């Protein structure tokens, strides 16, 4: 007999499994159609508050009973520190309200659940940087690089890293180190030996003391929670490892031979021992040796680590977070021009996510960068140092560095054929084809011939190849005469700069005056552009409101783009080329402008001063001019305008004007107007 009561239960179970399945699928789909993480919600106050305002409020933290020297040093520290932190926050690489940052903040909540007061004063942000690092500032801002997040294995390890950085904040390590170093410079602390040696020793030993204190306090903090304190030891071991990926053979070798797909025999090369190097140079380092740190942490933990957890939140959340960090890392390598690490990372991740369009796109871009960069010997050499630090990656480098440009071009074309959904529609593929047609079509190397034969099987590729003009490129001409005649009347000005320095003083940067001038500078740019009928929207944090999150993201993309173009060269199509041109299209422009002013006050040579007074004294009615000349400082002001054409990545206009007088409003206006007039060209 049929039990009718079981039907709803079965239905329920069915729905539950469907839900579970969809959940898992959606999890997998996230990475297969991965999108780069980005900032969300309103822009935090940290980003929009002027450095000078932060400095004003920080000055109140200086106690009245401190010595004059300490007060002065601390004021200088708060000044430098606030401007440096703002520079960092606004460099386009710091994210807010992003998935990784949100996760880090959740761990902070757990870590500081018994310290509500401290929690309120801490803000943690994730930085788009491949470098394995995290750092604390004196004002409670913690920065954690993606490079570090990608390497962590447990939530407890992240908690230890945060605990370590929190100690730096709580104990005011950065401030104390600054004061300590200033005392050394002023000779208020000495330690035998030569002055330089003494200073170096005292500086590094003080820094090491602080690092050890941060480690041990981090352990204390962990012990007060449910997290496993052994995470401290694990973090140290992770810091000693070289990259976040497990050593596995991957698809790279298969690409090398498109016909046979044989494995490439890596040629082992000499690897400098990082461990030995670290020990031998320990006295010059600001951090203690890893082995020493591990010993101290182990002693501190003793038997207290038993029964503690590696994960407090669901483990899946952590795994998703680190995987996202690793996905981001592969792109960050590309932006830095480190295509070998990008290749390695993307190939490794592709084994777990073979359908990931994101990773395939990264691979195409990395092989493209590899083919284009290898033509530049100088750039190739600079990569060597970077690559040799990574044991596994050096094999790829070793192989690629032995390939001829024609082979690299063929390899990149093969990568596009394998990974790109529609190679012919890809601008990078067309650029490679143009190189191939103009430079390598006659090459008889077996690998190149094999690729040629392979390409012949694809009619659309052949059609694209036929359309490419001989000795030309598919993208617009670069730095050609035609560009000079073009009218540039629509630019996007990104993050204008204004810096003042007084070279007569020991602390030369004039932070507050620079910021004040920068605020006026925005208005000067806008007015000048208006006078010349140049459309020049300015994307700058100074002018943003908390709700301008989209503008903030656009600014980050454009800044990273410009940095990449300057790093990799403008003959290589940038990683975010398409995204940048979408943003530019929104502003109805195809030009990004970098505009800035740097001004320096300098001492006049004594001989000049005396000479002026003597000469004007001889023709004595002009003596007031001589006295004026001798008493005022010498000035140099530099205004620069650089415009990047985002369509062909060429430098459409560049000019640096040197003015031998003060950066008065009139001087800056006159120079800026002339530069923008030249930039605009004839109408």
């Amino acid at each position, binding site marked *: 007999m049929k039990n009718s009561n079981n039907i709803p239960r079965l239905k329920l179970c069915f729905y539950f499994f469907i839900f579970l399945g969809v959940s898992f699928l959606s999890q997998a789909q996230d990475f297969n159609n991965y999108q780069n993480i980005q900032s969300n919600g309103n822009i935090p106050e940290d980003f929009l508050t002027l450095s000078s305002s932060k400095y004003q409020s920080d000055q109140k933290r200086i106690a009245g009973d401190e010595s004059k020297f300490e007060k002065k040093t601390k004021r200088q520290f708060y000044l430098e520190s606030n401007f440096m932190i703002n520079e960092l926050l606004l460099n386009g690489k710091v994210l807010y309200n992003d998935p990784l940052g949100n996760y880090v903040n959740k761990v902070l909540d757990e870590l500081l659940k018994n310290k509500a007061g401290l929690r309120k004063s801490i803000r943690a942000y994730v930085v788009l940087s491949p470098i394995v690092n995290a750092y604390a500032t004196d004002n409670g801002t913690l920065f954690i690089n993606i490079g570090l997040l990608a390497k962590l294995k447990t939530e407890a390890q992240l908690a230890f890293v945060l605990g370590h950085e929190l100690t730096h904040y709580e104990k005011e390590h950065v401030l104390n180190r600054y004061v300590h170093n200033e005392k050394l410079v002023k000779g208020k602390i000495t330690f035998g030996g030569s002055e330089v040696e003494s200073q170096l020793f005292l500086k590094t030993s003080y820094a090491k003391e602080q690092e050890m204190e941060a480690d041990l306090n981090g352990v204390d903090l962990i012990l007060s929670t449910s997290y496993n304190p052994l995470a401290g030891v694990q973090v140290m071991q992770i810091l000693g490892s070289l990259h976040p990926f497990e050593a596995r053979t991957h698809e790279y070798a298969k690409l090398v031979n498109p016909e046979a797909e044989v494995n490439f025999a890596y040629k082992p090369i000499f690897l400098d021992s990082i461990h030995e190097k670290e020990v031998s140079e320990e006295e010059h380092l600001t951090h203690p040796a890893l082995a020493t740190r591990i010993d101290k942490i182990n002693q501190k933990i003793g038997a207290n680590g038993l029964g503690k957890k590696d994960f407090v939140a669901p483990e899946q959340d952590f795994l998703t977070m680190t995987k996202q960090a690793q996905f981001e890392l592969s792109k960050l390598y590309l932006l830095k021009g480190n295509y070998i690490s990008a290749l390695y990372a993307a190939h490794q991740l592709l084994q777990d996510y073979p359908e990931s369009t994101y990773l395939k796109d990264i691979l195409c871009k990395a092989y493209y960068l590899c083919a284009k960069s290898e033509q530049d010997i100088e750039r190739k050499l600079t990569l060597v140092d970077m690559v040799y630090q990574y044991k596994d990656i050096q094999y790829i480098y070793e192989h690629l560095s032995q390939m001829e440009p024609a082979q690299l071009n063929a390899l990149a074309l093969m990568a596009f054929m394998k990974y790109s959904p529609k190679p012919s529609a890809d601008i990078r593929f067309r650029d490679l084809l143009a190189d191939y047609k103009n430079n390598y079509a006659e090459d008889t190397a077996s690998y190149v011939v094999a690729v040629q034969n392979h390409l012949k099987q694809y009619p659309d590729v052949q059609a694209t190849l036929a359309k490419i003009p001989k000795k030309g490129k598919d993208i617009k001409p670069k730095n050609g005469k035609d560009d000079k005649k073009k009218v540039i009347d629509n630019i996007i000005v990104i993050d204008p700069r204004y810096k003042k320095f007084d070279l007569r003083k020991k602390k030369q940067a004039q932070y507050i005056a620079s910021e004040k001038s920068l605020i006026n500078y925005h208005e000067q740019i806008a007015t000048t552009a208006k006078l010349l009928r140049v459309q020049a929207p300015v994307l700058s944090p100074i002018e943003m409101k908390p709700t301008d999150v989209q503008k903030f993201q656009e600014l980050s993309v454009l800044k990273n783009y410009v940095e990449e173009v300057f790093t990799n060269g403008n003959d290589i199509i940038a990683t975010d080329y398409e995204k940048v041109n979408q943003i530019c299209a929104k502003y109805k422009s195809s030009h990004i402008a970098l505009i800035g002013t740097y001004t320096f006050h300098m001492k006049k040579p004594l001989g000049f001063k005396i000479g002026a007074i003597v000469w004007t004294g001889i023709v004595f009615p002009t003596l007031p001019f001589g006295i004026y000349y001798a008493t005022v400082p010498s000035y140099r002001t530099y205004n620069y305008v650089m415009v990047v054409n985002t369509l062909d990545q060429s430098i459409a206009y560049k000019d640096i004007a*040197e*003015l*031998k*007088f003060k950066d008065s409003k*009139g001087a800056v206006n006159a120079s800026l*107007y002339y530069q923008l007039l030249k930039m605009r060209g004839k109408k």
Partner: protein
Amino acid sequence: MKYFIYLMLCFTGFYSAFAQVPGYRGKKIMIKVNAKGMPIIGALLGRENYFDLNARYSVGADVVLSKSVTAGVSIEQVNDIITLEKYGNYSKSGYNGLGKYETQANFYGYNFGANLKFFTHKTSGSIAPFGRFFIVEYVYSDIDVSDDGSFYASGKKDLNHFGAHSLVLGLGSQKVLFNRITFEANVKAGLNSYGIHSFAKTEKLLVQDEVYRASTSKMGTDFLLTVGIGIGFLAF
């Protein structure tokens, strides 16, 4: 009406010819007032007091011709007194007698100037009309020397009338304040051509040589070294 149209056409032509000239934020024409003085020089070379500033005032206009060059015109009023030496009867401090004595004459007229200023773009980054400049100036002086009543007993007024050409070189600096106001300071040195071109309407009198000597000496010292300031308005 016809002249007005010609004027407008010239003006439009002028503007389109200099469309790519930066000026100061596009402004290329300045109207100016200037003041200059010749401190001490008059006392060294002529019969003037040490602290006689000999201030002169002028009005003028400058137009920006290119990135580094402006052209200007000015008209300056000359209204001074020169000292003449006379031989004859005089009365001083209760003494009456015959001999040499000093009397004064009015030195009045206009200096018409035309100048070119070269802003040192390559060496100092100046962009006309902002920054440091060298100036080359031509000045035509149209001067009347007249008796204040103490030279001629007859009541005759005119002593001399002459014109002179001067070439002046100098250097200076010009700032722009509030985007509209220009402020200029300069030092100039020039030579006056009184020996080449002068004329007198007066009759050949015994006194003419003295008037000529005193007038030309005044002209010479006036141009030898001057220090000036100017305030202008960037009109359009």
